[in-house]
C-alpha cells in the first residue's frame, strides 16, 4: 500500500515537473523567439520589448492555459465519476452550447461593438449559467438526482442551443459569422488580466473543493446505492460536485471559448496511467490538463507563425492521436475502470 502511494506521489511530481518545464519552454517559443538563457535576465531587467512580451503576453497565456486546461480536465474527471459514464465530458451537459449561444447572440446584435468586447465573456457566462440552472432544476426536481435524466436533458439542451446558433449564423453577416466561428474554436488570448486571475483562482478553488470529496468519489465508483451503504451522502456529494464542475466549465468556456477534448481525453489518460483512485486522479487530471493545453498552445502559436491556429484544432487532433496511442499501449496492462 505504501508502495502504491509512493508510486502515485512520484507520478504526480513527474507531471508537475513537466508542467513547469513546458511552461518555461512555452515562454521562449513564439513569433519573437527568446532563448531560455535570456529569460531570467530579461525579467530581472524589468524593461524592453522582450520583457513586455514575456509578462504581458506569454505569462498570462501560460497561466490561462494551466487554469483552463486544469479546470476542464478536472470537470471531466468529476463528471465521469458522478455519472459513472466514461463518455461524459464538461460539454456533454450543454454548458458550452449555452455559452456559445449567448456569445453568438451578442455578436449578432453587435453588442460587443456598442458596449465593448468585455461583454462577450459575460454573455458566455450568462449562457452557461442558464444551461446549468435548467439542467439542475430539471434534474434535481422533487429532491431526486436522476443522473440519466440530467444527462439526457443536458444533451438535448446542447442540441437546441447549437441549432439556435446555426440559425443565428445563417441569417447574420459574414463579419459576425467570422467572429462567432473564431470564438467557438477557442483561444487562450485574453487581454483582460482580471479574467485570467479569476479563472486561475476559480480553478484552484475547484480543485480544493473537489479534493475534499475524493474519497466519496471513490465510493461512488461502486454506484450511488452502494456508496450510501458506506456512509456517503450520495445525493449531496453529487450535487456539490456537479455544481463545482459546471461552474468551472462555465468560467472556462466564457473566457477561452470552446476548447474541446481536454475534458474527455485527459482524465482517461490519467486513469489509464495512474488508476481510478480519485485522490490521485483529481490532481493528476488538473496538472495533465494544464500540461496538455500549454503544449497545444505552443503548437497553435508557432505552427503557422506569424498567424495563429485556433487551439481547439490542436487539442482535438493531438488529443485524439495521443489517446489512441496510449490506449493501445496501456489497455492490455490495466483494465479500464471508471
Amino acid at each position, binding site marked *: 500500500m505504501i508502495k502504491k502511494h509512493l508510486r502515485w506521489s512520484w507520478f504526480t511530481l513527474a507531471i508537475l515537473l513537466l508542467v513547469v518545464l513546458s511552461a518555461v519552454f512555452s515562454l521562449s517559443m513564439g513569433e519573437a523567439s527568446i532563448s531560455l538563457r535570456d529569460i531570467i535576465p530579461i525579467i530581472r531587467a524589468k524593461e524592453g520589448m522582450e520583457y513586455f512580451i514575456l509578462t504581458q503576453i506569454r505569462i498570462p497565456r501560460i497561466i490561462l492555459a494551466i487554469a483552463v486546461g486544469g479546470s476542464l480536465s478536472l470537470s471531466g474527471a468529476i463528471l465521469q465519476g458522478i455519472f459513472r459514464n466514461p463518455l461524459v465530458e464538461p460539454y456533454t451537459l450543454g454548458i458550452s452550447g449555452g455559452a456559445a449561444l449567448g456569445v453568438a447572440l451578442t455578436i449578432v446584435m453587435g453588442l460587443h461593438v456598442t458596449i465593448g468586447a468585455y461583454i462577450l465573456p459575460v454573455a458566455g457566462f450568462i449562457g452557461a449559467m442558464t444551461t446549468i440552472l435548467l439542467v439542475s432544476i430539471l434534474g434535481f426536481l422533487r429532491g431526486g438526482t436522476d443522473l440519466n435524466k440530467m444527462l439526457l436533458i443536458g444533451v438535448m439542451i446542447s442540441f437546441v442551443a447549437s441549432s439556435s446558433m446555426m440559425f443565428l449564423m445563417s441569417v447574420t453577416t459574414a463579419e459576425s459569422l467570422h467572429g462567432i466561428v473564431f470564438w467557438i474554436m477557442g483561444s487562450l488570448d485574453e487581454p483582460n488580466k482580471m479574467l485570467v486571475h479569476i479563472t486561475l483562482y476559480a480553478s484552484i478553488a475547484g480543485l480544493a473543493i473537489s479534493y475534499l470529496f475524493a*474519497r466519496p468519489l*471513490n*465510493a461512488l465508483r*461502486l*454506484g450511488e446505492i452502494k456508496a*450510501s*451503504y458506506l456512509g456517503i451522502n450520495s445525493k449531496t456529494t453529487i450535487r456539490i460536485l456537479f455544481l463545482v464542475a459546471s461552474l468551472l466549465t462555465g468560467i472556462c468556456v466564457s473566457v477561452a471559448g470552446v476548447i474541446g477534448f481536454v475534458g474527455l481525453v485527459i482524465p482517461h489518460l490519467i486513469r489509464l496511467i495512474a*488508476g481510478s483512485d480519485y485522490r490521485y486522479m483529481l490532481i493528476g487530471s488538473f496538472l495533465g490538463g494544464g500540461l496538455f493545453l500549454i503544449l497545444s498552445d505552443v503548437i497553435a502559436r508557432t505552427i503557422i507563425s506569424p498567424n495563429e491556429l485556433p487551439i481547439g484544432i490542436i487539442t482535438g487532433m493531438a488529443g485524439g492521436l495521443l489517446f489512441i496511442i496510449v490506449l493501445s499501449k496501456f489497455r492490455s496492462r490495466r*483494465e479500464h475502470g471508471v
Partner: protein
Amino acid sequence: MVSDYLIIEKLRCGYGNVFNLQAVSITLNKGAFAGIIGPNGSGKTTLFKGISGSLPVKSGAISLNNTNLNNLKPVEKARKVAVVTQYPDAAGIAVEDYVLMGRLPYRETFQFFETQKDHDIAEKYMRLTGIIDHKDKLMTQLSGGEQQLAAIAQALSQEPELLLLDEPTSHLDITHQVQILNLLQHLNQEMNLTVLMIIHDLNLAAEYCDYLIMMDKGSIFTKGTPHEVLNYQNIEQVYKTVVVTQNNPLSGKPAIFLVSDNIMKNQKKHHDAPPPTFDL
C-alpha cells in the same frame, strides 16, 4: 443474548402505488442468523431495501439496539449496519482498495488517506475471508465467489453490528455457496454478529439460518425456526409448488424435495388405480 436487538415495527415502504409492503414487523435477537425467503415478487427485496435504507420508509420504525436507524446520518448508520449486495459492481478497483472502502464511515472530513488502523482492520478481514492473496489484483480479475468474499470483507471492515446480505450465494457454485455460508456462520458464532439475509435456496436457508421469515404478497406469511416455517403446507401455499419435505439425516434440519410433473402423474395413477384384488 439480548432479546429484541433488531426491532422492525410496522415497516411500510415501496414504489409509489405499484408495490408496497404491508406493515411488516420483525424482531431479532442479538446474534441471530436470520433468512428472508419467499417467491419472486413477494417483497423480499423491498423489505431489504427498507431496512438497508435505499428505499425511503413510509411509516414504521427500525431500531437496532435501542437506536432508531431512520434518524441516523448515513455515516453513523454505516458504522452499525453493513450491506452486501448481490453483485459487487466494482470495475477496475484493486481488491485491497475495495476492502479499505469499508473504513469510509470512520474517516474525518479532512482525512484523505487511510490510517494504519484502517489497513490493519482491512488486512484482518481479508485474511479471515481468504482473499489476502488476491489483494493486489483487480476486482474484475476475481471469480464471482471471490468477489462476493471481497464484498463481505469490505462489509466486515465497517465493523457493523448488523450484517445485511442480498442473496449472497445466488449465482455461485455449491463450493462457494457453502464456503460463504460457512464463513457467515462462523462470523455469527465467533463475533456474535447479527446476520439477516435474503436467500432464495430453501435448502440452504433451512440448513444455515436459525430463524426464517417467509414473505408472500408484500407481507409476512409466517416466521419462526426452519422446522416451523418450512413444512410442505406453507411452501405449497406460498410457492404454489408441490414439494416433499424430510429432515437432513445429519443435521436434522428440513430438506425440501421438488416433484416433477411425471412423478406427479405416476403417483396419481398409482393412487387412482383400483386396489389389487387377490382371488384365491
